[in-house]
C-alpha cells in the first residue's frame, strides 16, 4: 500500500506545470475567448507537448511515454489549475491512446501538439472545442469514429465559458474512420474522460482557492484584512476540506482504472461527484469572498469558475453518477 503520486508521474506533472506557468499566463486563457487570438493557446499547447505530456498513455514504441492513468490524473490536475483552454482530456486521455492503437498517421501531429482532438462520447450533440480542434471523435452506438473537423457540420455556440469554443454537431457527416469498435475499449475511453475531467476540476478548485486566499489576505475592510474574519475563514476552510477530500478520490480512481479493478467505474463516478461538487463549492465561495471584485470579468476568477460550470455537468453530471452508484449498490 502506497498512496502517493509516483516519481515518474510527479516529474511529468511538474514539467508540464512549469511550462504552463511560463507559457500560459492568464492572458493566454483570455485569448481563447471569442475575439481573442486562438493561436496563443495553440502555441502554449505545443510547448506542453514538448514535455511528452500528450503521449502519456501512448506506448513508447509509438512515440509516447508509456505511462498509465496514475500519471494522467496529476498531469490533468496541473492543466486544470492552469486553465489553458484546450481539449486536454480529449487529446491526452482519449485521442492519443486510441489513435495509437489504430495506428493512425495523425498520431505524430497529436503528440507534437499541432493537432488537438475534440470528443463527444456521450449522447449529447455539444462538442467542446469543436470550433478549433483539428480532429473530432464521435460515438455512434457502440463505435467511436474519428473525423477531420472539416468533415463535420459544426455550428458555434455561445456558452458560459467562451474559451471552450463549443460547437453543435449537425447530422451531416462526411468521411471519418472507425477508431474503436470493441465495447470494452469504447467504455474505458468514456471512463478515462470522466477521470480526466475530475482531475481538471480538482485543479480548477485549487486555483480558485489560492486566488481567493491571496485576495482576502490583502483586501481590507473595517480596518482589517477580510481574511481575518471568521465568516471568511470558515467558508474557505470548508472549501479546502472539499478539495482535499476530492483529490485522493480522483487519484484512487486513476489507480483503479490503471489496475483494472472490478469497481473502477464506480470509483470514477464517486471521484466525479466529489470533484464536481468541490469545484462548484469553491467557485461559489471564491466569488462570495471576493465581494464585488469577484463579480467582474476584469478580474481573473471568472475564467476558472466558468470552466467549472461547464465541466461539472459534462461527462455525466453528479446526479447521473450518483444514480449509477445507487444502481450498483442496489438502493
Amino acid at each position, binding site marked *: 500500500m502506497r498512496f502517493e503520486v509516483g516519481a515518474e508521474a510527479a516529474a511529468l506533472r511538474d514539467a508540464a506545470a512549469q511550462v504552463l506557468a511560463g507559457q500560459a499566463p492568464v492572458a493566454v486563457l483570455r485569448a481563447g475567448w471569442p475575439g481573442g487570438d486562438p493561436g496563443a493557446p495553440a502555441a502554449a499547447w505545443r510547448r506542453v507537448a514538448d514535455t511528452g505530456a500528450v503521449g502519456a498513455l501512448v506506448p513508447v514504441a509509438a512515440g509516447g511515454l508509456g505511462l498509465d492513468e496514475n500519471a494522467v490524473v496529476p498531469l490533468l490536475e496541473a492543466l486544470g489549475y492552469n486553465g489553458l483552454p484546450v481539449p486536454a482530456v480529449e487529446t491526452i486521455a482519449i485521442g492519443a491512446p486510441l489513435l495509437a492503437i489504430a495506428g493512425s498517421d495523425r498520431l505524430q501531429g497529436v503528440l507534437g501538439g499541432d493537432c488537438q482532438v475534440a470528443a463527444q462520447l456521450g449522447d449529447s450533440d455539444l462538442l467542446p472545442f469543436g470550433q478549433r480542434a483539428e480532429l473530432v471523435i464521435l460515438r455512434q452506438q457502440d463505435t467511436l469514429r474519428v473525423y477531420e473537423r472539416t468533415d463535420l457540420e459544426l455550428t458555434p455556440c455561445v456558452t458560459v465559458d467562451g474559451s471552450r469554443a463549443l460547437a453543435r454537431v449537425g447530422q451531416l457527416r462526411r468521411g471519418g474512420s472507425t477508431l474503436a469498435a470493441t465495447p470494452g475499449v469504447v467504455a474505458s475511453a468514456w471512463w478515462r474522460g470522466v477521470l480526466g475531467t475530475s482531475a481538471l476540476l480538482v485543479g480548477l478548485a485549487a486555483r480558485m482557492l489560492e486566488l481567493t486566499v491571496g485576495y482576502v489576505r490583502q483586501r481590507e475592510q473595517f480596518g482589517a484584512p477580510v481574511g481575518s474574519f471568521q465568516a471568511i475563514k470558515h467558508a474557505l*476552510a470548508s472549501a479546502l476540506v472539499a478539495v482535499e477530500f476530492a483529490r485522493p478520490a480522483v487519484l484512487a480512481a486513476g489507480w483503479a482504472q490503471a489496475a483494472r479493478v472490478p469497481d473502477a467505474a464506480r470509483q470514477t463516478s464517486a471521484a466525479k461527484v466529489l470533484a464536481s461538487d468541490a469545484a462548484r463549492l469553491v467557485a461559489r465561495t471564491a466569488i462570495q469572498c471576493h465581494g464585488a471584485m469577484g463579480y467582474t470579468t476584469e478580474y481573473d476568477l471568472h475564467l476558472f469558475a466558468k470552466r467549472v460550470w461547464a465541466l461539472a455537468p459534462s461527462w455525466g453530471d453528479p446526479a447521473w453518477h450518483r444514480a449509477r*452508484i445507487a444502481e450498483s449498490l442496489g438502493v
Partner: protein
Amino acid sequence: MDLTWQPSEQSFRTEAREWLAAHVPGPMPSGDTREGFAAHLEWERALFAARWSAVSWPKRFGGRDATLWEWLIFEEEYYRAGAPQRVTQNGIFLLAPTLFEFGTPQQQERLLPRMAAAEDLWCQGWSEPGAGSDLAAVRSRAVRDEAAGGWLLSGQKTWTTRGAFCTHLFGLFRTDPDSARHHGLTYFLLPLDAPGVTVRGFERLDGDEGFAEVFFDRVFVPDQDVVGDVDQGWRVAMATTGSERGLTLRSPGRFMASAQRLVELARQRPSDQLRDRVVQSWIEAQAYQQFTLQQVTGIVDGKPSGPESSLNKIFWSELDVRLQETAMDLLGEHGELDSPWSRGFQFALAGPIYAGTNEVQRNVVAERLLGLPRV
C-alpha cells in the same frame, strides 16, 4: 500508487476477521451506562487476552507491533464485524500516544500494560466550566509540595467522558500561577480514588450517564506522574489532540461500516427521495478512506500529520451527522423509537463538538493550512 495489501497484511486481516466472527458478542447496553460499562469491560478483557486491544503497541506492552496499515485493517474488520464501542479508547488512543512520545520508560512500563488489559481505565481531564474549545483557559491549578515530592491539585474538570466509571484521569493543570493561556500548564496522571477527588456523573443528551464533573481539593500527585516537563503541558497535550482529531480516534473503517449499514437500511426501506443522500454518504465514507490512505503513507514516510488532522475531524464528524440523519429519515416515524440508529444519530451530534468544535477546527485550517491572518 499501489493500493493493494501485502500477503502479510491480508493474513493479518483474515486472522482478525476470523477471531472477531467467533467472539463478537451480541447487542449489549451502552458503554456509557453503569451496567453497560461493566459488560464492555468484559469484552475489553477478552480483546486483551487475544492481544487485539492495542494492536499497534509493542508486544511487551500487550500489543502486536502491528504497522499503522495493519491497525487500519484491524479497525475496518472491527467495525465491519459490528463489535462493541471501545470504552478504553481515551486511554489507548489518546493517552498512550502521548506516553509513547513524552512518557519515561518507567511510566510506559508501569501504565501501558495495565491500560491494554483494561485494568486501569482512563478518562480525559481537559475541559473545565470555563475552558471548552478554549482549552488554554484552563484554571485548575497544581501547587508544588516540595517536601512530599509532588503537587497538590485543585479545581474542577467537566464533560469528562465516562468519568463516573473510569479509574484514572489524565489532565492539564496550571503549575505556574503567574502564567496565562498555554504557558505554565503541566500534564498530570492520577487515580480517581485519590484523597480529595470527587466525581459526579451526569447525563449526556442521549440520557446516558456518560459525562462527569470531577472536583479536586488538594489532591496529591507525585512527580513520577507528571508527563513531560513541568510547565510544558500544552505541548504534550497537543500531541494528543492530533490523535484525537485525526485518524487514531476515528478510522475510516468505522464510517465504511456505517455507510454499508445505511445501504442495507435503504435496501430494506427503499426511498426515491432519499437515494441520493444514501449514495452521498457512501461516497464520503470511501473518500475518507482514500484520504486516510494518503495521509498514512505520509506518516509512514516520516511526515507527521499536524494541523491536517483538523481536516479529518471536520470531514468525519460532518459525514457522520449527514449519514445518521439520512438513516433517521429512512426510518420515518420509526426513527423516534430507541434503536442503534437513534442512538447513533444522537451520538453523531457530539462529533462536531468534542475534540475541539468544528468552528475551532475551521479556524485552525484557515490560519495554519491556508495562512489566513489571525486577528
